[in-house]
């Protein structure tokens, strides 16, 4: 547990079965930061942890140091969630993303507090929470629109009806931005799931608190278990598995570390994972092109019978 912070708050004593306020120091209930796999909050199977600190070196929390086996379990959860999530009505996905925003809005204070603990000023924290909520709403709106913008009906020369539409690529492993606790995380998760993919996300190592709290937000909104799985841990340790797992279809990476990027590309070649590299973005950006980064284009053909005397004249 993180270090004990006591505040001068009213405590209670029990008289005749009734709690009564007594002016004394109350021991704060501290939060256990766990990981999020398949809609559940287990601890890492490895039993390992690391201590998240603020800039001043104060301990913030004991975080799970997730292992490759945690990742393996998370991929299984993401894969089994993919079928239903990708088949869900786009409009429904939009409402679920909106619901996440609602839940996040309701927990503004908690996120602000965590962001401040992780070295943001109150104004910055306020701004980051606001942007994160708005970002979710932005992508909620895209869920049933990007397909229209990026589809095409193709006027082939033969007697066929032919159209191309985006489809989710599948299970996406995501190394979340390391410099941002909440906004970066939300900015990479939202377009991935808005497009019907499921994902396994490795949270920022140094600023992990919001990721776990965000998992709680996801869990209390209508996102089915397994659609988003969130691990905390070391990038260097988990990156190879994020990149070479044969049942992962794409990987998103947001840093500018050449060695990491090279490793991702090399390992991804094993099953030709789609590699999506965002060089250290400040995450002021939002666009449907981020959704398209994890989409496949499917083209469908079907013959058109040309029968009848009208010859197209009415």
């Amino acid at each position, binding site marked *: 547990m993180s270090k004990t912070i006591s505040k001068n708050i009213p405590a209670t004593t029990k008289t005749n079965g009734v709690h009564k306020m007594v002016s004394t120091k109350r021991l704060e209930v501290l939060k256990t930061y766990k990981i999020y796999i398949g809609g559940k909050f287990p601890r890492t199977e490895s039993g390992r942890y690391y201590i998240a600190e603020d800039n001043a070196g104060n301990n913030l929390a004991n975080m799970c140091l997730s292992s490759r086996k945690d990742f393996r379990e998370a991929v299984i959860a993401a894969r089994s969630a993919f079928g239903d999530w990708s088949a869900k009505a786009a409009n429904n996905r939009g409402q679920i993303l909106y619901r996440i925003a609602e839940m996040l809005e309701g927990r503004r204070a908690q996120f602000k507090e965590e962001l401040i603990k992780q070295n943001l000023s109150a104004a910055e924290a306020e701004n980051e929470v606001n942007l994160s909520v708005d970002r979710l709403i932005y992508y909620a709106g895209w869920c049933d629109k990007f397909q229209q913008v990026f589809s095409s009906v193709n006027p082939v020369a033969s007697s066929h009806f032919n159209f191309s539409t985006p489809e989710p690529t599948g299970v996406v492993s995501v190394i979340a931005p390391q410099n941002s606790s909440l906004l970066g995380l939300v900015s990479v998760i939202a377009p991935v799931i808005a497009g019907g993919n499921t994902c396994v996300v490795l949270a920022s190592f140094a600023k992990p608190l919001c990721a776990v709290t965000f998992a709680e937000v996801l869990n209390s909104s209508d996102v089915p278990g397994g659609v988003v799985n969130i691990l905390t841990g070391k990038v260097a340790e988990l990156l190879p598995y994020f990149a070479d797992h044969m049942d992962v279809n794409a990987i998103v990476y947001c840093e500018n570390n050449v060695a990491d990027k090279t490793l991702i590309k090399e390992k991804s070649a094993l099953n030709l994972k789609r590699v999506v590299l965002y060089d250290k973005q400040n995450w002021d950006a939002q666009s449907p092109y981020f959704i398209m980064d994890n989409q496949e284009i499917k083209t469908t*053909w079907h013959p058109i019978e040309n029968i009848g005397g009208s010859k197209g004249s009415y």
Partner: protein
Amino acid sequence: MAKRDNTLKLKFDSARKFAPAPESRSAAKIKPKYDLFINGKFEKPLSKKYFDSTNPATGEKLSEVADSSAADVDKAVKAARNAFNSWSKLPAAERGKYIFRIARMVQERARELAIVETLDGGKPIRESRDFDVPTAANHFFYYAGWADKLEYAFPNRTAKPLGVAGQIIPWNFPLLMAAWKIAPALATGNTVVLKPAETTPLTAMLLAEIILEADLPPGVVNIITGAGSTGAAIVNHPDVNKIAFTGSTDVGKIIEKAIAGTDKKATLELGGKAANIIFEDAPLDQAVEGIVNGIFFNQGHVCCAGSRLYVQESVLESVLRKLKDRIETLIVGDPLDKNTDVGAINSKQQYDQIMKYIKIGINEGSDMFQSSCTLPSKGLYIPPTIFSNVAQSSRIAQEEIFGPVLTIQSFRTDDEVIEKANNTPYGLSAGVWTDKGSKIFNLTTKLRAGVVWANTFNKFDPTSPFGGYKESGYGREGGLHGLAPYLNLV
């Protein structure tokens, strides 16, 4: 096999016996030797080496082409880099006009290109004449028109060319693949270094002549010949911004590793093992034709070939019988004969590969049926071959054979066949045959493949995006979606 003896047999011997109707070779002028097309000139290779290009139908030597060394590749890339500046700044409409011009010249020389394609690659003249060459011309024509309209293609983004595109193409559709690669690259303002496959370089060199004749600015398109090492030199060249590759999944993975840590973009169009699914309520005769087009088109040298046939058990017998009778009517032989349906296998290496898989199929205990046609005594030919009683776990049902070999599995229910069809690392194409509309859309949605043909198969069009899911590669070629892989969207 025993069953065949009990059935009434239709006789097709005479259906295969036409008087020879060879396309005249005189319309094709093949030079004895082709140099490298670099910077708008035909230049001798710095390597000073040449290799033969032969006719797989006869084994005769057709010509010699240059073997590019890394130094030749460097020269070509430099030429492309130099040309990039002015080409990308040329008014887009003018760029388009050059590409239109190429399209027209391909049409003008269509007959010659078709003959050379057939001589060099072994594909039936009917296919090169009716499919490869016209589709190649149409591809140029289609992308030519995009050049000055890119701002309409990408809402809220500005399209910028990438720079020098290194393009490596396979031997199964040599001219068409060159068109698929060059046309969008030029339309988007990139310059090109293209390498045709070593067994089929000749139509690319004819295309180089056309490009020269079209007066394209020097260096905008460079065409260099060579084998795998030349391709590797293109991939590894530090001044190449984009790799477009069509070929095997193995080589695709090597390329992917090779460009790791660089800023090179890539499009990979790789192998496939497409499921072609026939439901009991399908238009069966058209489905049989779809099976035949799916696997015997171009001798089965097609990455999106419908090589895994799934037939609902209630119609399995009927489909098999129709299919066998249809196969009996296929004319296998001289690719230059206008009546040939199935031509020569492209190379000895590929021939051995296919024969290896046929042996594996026999050893695995599947039932083999081959056309009773007689093969030409000379040249590389394999009769149309089908294996029935194949299991999902048979090697011939899992691995890409790239030849006229079909595996047939039966299935019972919709969900069973969807699962089996998707049970492969590949995801290039798929086919589904049923008369029921809602079932079609269920299947076309659930099949994890980039192109799904419903009640048809192996159809292509310049406006239609093509490319794979999973290990069949990434990026699209053709259509609106074929533009993005050659652009930075800012």
